[in-house]
């Protein structure tokens, strides 16, 4: 209850009907003596306790966010929801890790062919916690790719891509492709032997697509050979172009998840809803009495 007082009324979990929250409490038994009045300090304390709630209420009055937030935070999830359902959030967490560490790496990284490798060694060897942040970004990218595939597998094997969630599956596939593009473009940035040759091979694989492939290779390299502008081009794609698209599509993905709800795992059989049975019995009764069933 103490925590509840910090949450503005519109954001509190709606009370279940009949749970007794509406009761006013017992009437005062002694009406003759005046109730004890709180001192000024006590009242100030009470006011101070309510300050966070007041601030939230002030924002809520101007944004009407509480309706959306209660709908999102207290939405119903189906019976049987289990740990597999957290893979999407885990992927989102991995993305946030990549975004945050990437922003800080960009403070030290220099996307020039002669400076890229020295700047990465500088991050790894001299910057405080640099190796840690770089490591989080480097290994986190693999984590994100693994998690997004597990999330995709969960969605597929639970049949959660079916109506009405097909569009969310399509958005998810685009997010997968964008994630792979992030991994590909990020690989070149340290500009050591491994990343250089991996990018050469990767671009050549792109080029084997018929008709458009060779032009796609030229687009990625900014020319016929991997050159000075290739690195800055990859850097720009890696940190500006695709993150923007990723964030926008993640927003759409989450909106649809909240809007459509999640599915029950396939091993749960649908229970016969009790209410629906009651209505059908009611209709049967109406028909028996000669009336038309209510629709």
């Amino acid at each position, binding site marked *: 209850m103490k925590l509840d007082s910090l949450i503005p009324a519109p954001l509190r979990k709606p009370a279940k009907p009949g749970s007794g929250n509406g009761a006013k409490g017992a009437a005062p038994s002694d009406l003759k003596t005046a109730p004890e009045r709180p001192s000024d300090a006590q009242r100030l304390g009470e006011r101070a306790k309510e300050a966070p709630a007041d601030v939230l209420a002030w924002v809520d009055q101007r944004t009407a966010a509480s309706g959306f937030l209660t709908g999102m935070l207290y939405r119903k999830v189906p019976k049987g929801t289990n740990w597999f359902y957290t893979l999407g959030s885990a992927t989102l967490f991995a993305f946030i890790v990549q975004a945050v560490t990437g922003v800080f790496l960009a403070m030290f990284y220099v996307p020039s062919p002669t400076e890229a490798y020295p700047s990465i060694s500088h991050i790894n060897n001299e910057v405080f916690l640099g190796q840690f942040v770089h490591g989080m970004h480097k290994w986190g990218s693999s984590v994100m790719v693994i998690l997004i595939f597990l999330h995709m597998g969960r969605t597929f094997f639970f049949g959660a891509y079916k109506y009405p969630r097909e569009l969310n599956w399509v958005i998810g596939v685009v997010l997968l492709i964008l994630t792979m593009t992030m991994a590909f473009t990020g690989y070149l940035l340290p500009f050591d032997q491994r990343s250089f*040759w991996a990018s050469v*091979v990767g671009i050549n694989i792109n*080029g084997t697509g018929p*008709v458009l492939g060779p032009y796609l290779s030229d*687009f990625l*390299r900014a020319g*016929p050979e*991997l*050159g000075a502008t290739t690195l800055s081009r990859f850097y720009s794609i890696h940190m500006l172009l695709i993150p923007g698209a990723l964030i926008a599509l993640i927003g759409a993905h989450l909106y649809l998840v909240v809007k459509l709800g999640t599915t029950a795992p396939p091993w749960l059989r649908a229970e016969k809803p009790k209410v629906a049975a009651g209505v059908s019995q009611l209709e049967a009764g109406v028909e028996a009495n000669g009336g038309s069933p209510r629709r």
Partner: protein
Amino acid sequence: MADQTDKQNGAETTPAERAKPNPPGYFEGESMTRRRVFTIAAQGLGGVAGAAIVLPAVGFAVAPIFHRGKERWEEVGRVEDFVEDTYRQVVFTETEGIADAGKTTAYVRKGSARLEEDPKEMIAISNRCAHLGCPVRFVEAAGNFICPCHGGVYDFAGKVLGGPPVRPLDRFQTRIQGGRVEVGPRYSVTSQLEAVRARDPGEFTGGIWEYLYPPRPSTFPPP
């Protein structure tokens, strides 16, 4: 009654009694309302504004596809440094501006009469594997080029003997100036060693492949 209300509110006549408007240019069969004209105009302006942002940006990003750099020639040795029955490895700069990463390796020899080549010509074979671009090396004992990545094997002339490569090894244009050998732009060859514009590794050459993997404007015409 609606008419009654109109009269009470000051309207002199009912809509039917009102005189037809007759401003210059007015005609009965008007097909476009003012609202529609403004809607289309606003959307059109928005489209123009969007195109003004997108088109230059896209053009900027794809321009390198249509740009061909300056032809580059580099001296790699004297004519007498090279023989016709084995290769000599030379390293030279193919792409400027990225230091050592822009260097490439070629295997150079004199034209061999045995292979029906002009003995006065120089043959420069790129070490870039035609499979995915790994560096091949010439193995003297076998007389073959061998790729370490996926086992591609090429014969002495650079033709595919085995493995995944899709075409013979690329070559570089060569010329002799004052007794010194110079190598120039890269070009690719078909399986019959006919010169075509440079292709990326993994792309077939010759026949219908010339259309499926069209020549890129950023490469130089073959010799």
